[in-house]
């Protein structure tokens, strides 16, 4: 069959279509966004009524996927690593309820924080939940693992976690598809209609089942096609390599012959017997894993006595950041390579708000309004407008997690910082801001909330915003007084008017919501181009 050139994300999406999913659920988040977009743009998905529209957040996405699995159909849910924090509650509990139709949870980690606020390793979540984890080393394996993962999920009635990293998600390579496409499952209720009722009396039984199944998962890992022990003559060192780190290892051996025994891990829980074989045969073990030193810690044990384990914890590899071929060359005692030094005159070019961006005018008005007050009052959130922290704006003082602007402003106001301001985007507001707003209304907190409404989920590339056309009604419905919901047009020519409105609302001793509304200029550009294209 013909090779397709696919991003890791796209390979996963193609795998899901070929595995017969009935729906994919997600909230956009780099580096996971392209999985869902591939399915949204697929004619096959459209013709076969495969659900693919965006969810309000990762928690609602996870729960919807679980609901689809409940009915016996196959579902996939995708998110970036920090999205799994938002979805942690249903995720951990889905291991206890188990699945009915096959269910795969994709978590895309971002070591080196190319586009994130941390580099947490989702394998820990998988281990915590006691679900099996698949970790591909390349795009073909990513595709194959989706088919394998759905089979596994249906065999053991358990959600499967597929963990990828940015480098795999956003790298293209050839992928060969399976010979046949599987049909979607028919509706088929769980055999035990109390399977998903996690009352303590039932949950206790289900948890014991999960613990029992866990031994079977380890057995499956021992014989998994994705876990491979390759022997080598030089037993002074054994190498355990997880996921994409395998590629960086191979890069250091152009003839692909590695003199040491290598255990390649692509499926967890860890294959215990294979690890023991290596421990028996080798004097030292080098662990290469992108993300946190999870496998390394496991091998070291609490006291670290006995076998010598090398990796991120003993300084053989850097403790943080993404791996690359050079880091691994040095760990193997091979010479490092380096080109020319970067000339001193080279300065950084950080991302910035686009010229003409409505956020620029919103920040201009806000900064002027606050100029008479002491600094440090603006709690912000996750989106393009987070770039307002950088020069020349320096307009915000926090960015923690989706929705934290409103609740942090409320906490600060509770402590006496009055006025406190929250700045949040339209789709971040419906992702995780609404519940915090309810808290503020119930306490009549003296905070001013700017909901920057650019009509799209801009940072991740302009996906439809679940908030579109709903913001005022949501605010009214939650109880914001109508007189204190103000709409602005963030344009230079209305600057003085906007400052005046901001001043009025900052003076109000209660919750105000100000909505600067103007379409994202990249979205306008795209809309016009699409219109032109369709003519």
């Amino acid at each position, binding site marked *: 069959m013909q090779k397709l050139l696919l991003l890791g994300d796209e390979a996963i999406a193609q795998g899901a279509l070929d595995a017969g999913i009935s729906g994919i659920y997600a909230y956009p988040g780099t580096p996971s*966004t392209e999985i869902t977009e591939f399915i949204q743009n697929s004619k096959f998905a459209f013709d076969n009524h495969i659900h693919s529209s965006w969810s309000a957040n990762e928690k609602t996405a996870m729960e919807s996927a679980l609901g689809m699995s409940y009915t016996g159909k196959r579902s996939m849910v995708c998110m970036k690593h920090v999205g799994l924090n938002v979805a942690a509650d249903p995720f951990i509990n889905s291991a206890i309820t188990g699945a009915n139709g096959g269910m795969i949870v994709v978590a895309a980690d971002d070591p080196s924080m190319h586009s994130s606020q941390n580099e947490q390793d989702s394998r820990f979540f998988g281990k915590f939940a006691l679900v099996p984890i698949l970790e591909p080393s390349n795009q073909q394996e990513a595709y194959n693992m989706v088919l394998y993962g759905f089979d596994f999920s249906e065999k053991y009635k358990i959600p499967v976690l597929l963990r990828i990293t940015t480098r795999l998600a956003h790298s*293209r390579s050839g992928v060969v598809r399976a010979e046949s496409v599987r049909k979607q499952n028919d509706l088929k209720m769980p055999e035990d209609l109390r399977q998903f009722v996690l009352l303590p009396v039932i949950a206790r039984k289900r948890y014991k089942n999960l613990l029992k199944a866990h031994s079977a998962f380890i057995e499956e890992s021992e014989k998994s096609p994705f876990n491979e022990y390759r022997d080598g003559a030089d037993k002074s060192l054994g190498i355990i390599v997880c996921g994409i780190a395998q590629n*960086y290892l191979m890069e250091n051996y152009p003839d692909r012959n590695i003199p040491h025994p290598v255990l390649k891990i692509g499926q967890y829980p860890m294959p215990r017997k294979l690890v023991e074989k290596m421990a028996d045969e080798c004097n030292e073990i080098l662990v290469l894993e992108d993300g946190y030193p999870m496998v390394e810690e496991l091998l070291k044990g609490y006291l670290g006595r006995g076998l010598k384990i090398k990796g991120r914890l003993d300084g053989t590899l850097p403790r943080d950041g993404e791996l690359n071929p050079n880091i691994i060359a040095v760990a193997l005692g091979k010479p490092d390579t*380096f080109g020319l*030094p970067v000339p001193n*005159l*080279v300065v950084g070019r950080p*991302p910035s708000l*686009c010229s003409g961006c409505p956020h620029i005018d919103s920040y201009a008005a806000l900064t002027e309004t606050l100029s008479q007050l002491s600094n440090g009052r603006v709690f912000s959130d996750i989106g393009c407008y987070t770039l307002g922290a950088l020069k020349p704006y320096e307009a915000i003082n926090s960015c923690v997690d989706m929705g934290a602007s409103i609740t942090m402003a409320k906490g600060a106001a509770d402590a006496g910082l009055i006025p406190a301001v929250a700045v949040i985007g339209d789709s971040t507001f419906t992702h995780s801001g609404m519940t915090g707003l309810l808290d503020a209304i119930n306490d009549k907190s003296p905070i001013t909330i700017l909901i920057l409404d650019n009509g799209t989920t801009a940072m991740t590339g302009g996906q439809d915003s679940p908030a579109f056309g709903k913001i005022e009604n949501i605010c009214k419905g939650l109880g914001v007084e109508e007189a204190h919901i103000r709409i602005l047009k963030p344009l230079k020519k209305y600057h003085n008017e906007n400052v005046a409105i901001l001043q009025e609302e900052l003076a109000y001793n209660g919750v105000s919501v100000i909505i600067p509304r103007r379409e994202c200029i990249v979205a306008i550009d795209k809309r016009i181009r699409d219109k032109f294209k369709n003519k």
Partner: protein
Amino acid sequence: MKKDIILAGVGGQGIISIAAIIGYAALEQGMFLKQSEVHGMSQRGGEVMSNLRISHHEIASDLIPFGQADMIISIEPLESLRYLPYLSKEGWLVTNTTPLNNIPNYPDISSILEEVRKVPHHIALEADVLAKEAGSAKAANIVILGAASPFLGMAYEKLEDAIRFTFRKKGDKVIELNLAALKAGHDFANKHK
């Protein structure tokens, strides 16, 4: 044959298009390919780079090791210098000389070009001017691709075919314009290499 290429520029300048064209030409010749891209936050007018690896043998790493790139292809002069640690001793630096100045502390352009000229094997050209002459300033990235073409280890015609394929939905005029841009870069490099 194996070529490891660093593509550099500023978000929105079209390095992914260059990668797609070289990638298509490589695949048509039955080569293997790995191409790592930048998505998300850094696209907003920030520095962007892509690792493009093509080879007749299977490729291991998605990332090119430092000191081993055969080429840096850059659509912006300052960006061309940022990735020099990747370039091998015999490697070529092919860069646009037209600056994209969207930061307050953009260095003096003549100092930047002086640094470019220190790289043993380099081609530096005013791609924006050549692109305008070819019919559209938007084709600067294709001019740069043309300037890189003598070092790609593949027949020039394969790149022409790839351009015809890439722009097939945009009509003959756009194809011709881009072929002219490719040729302008190609001729410049052959004269100055």
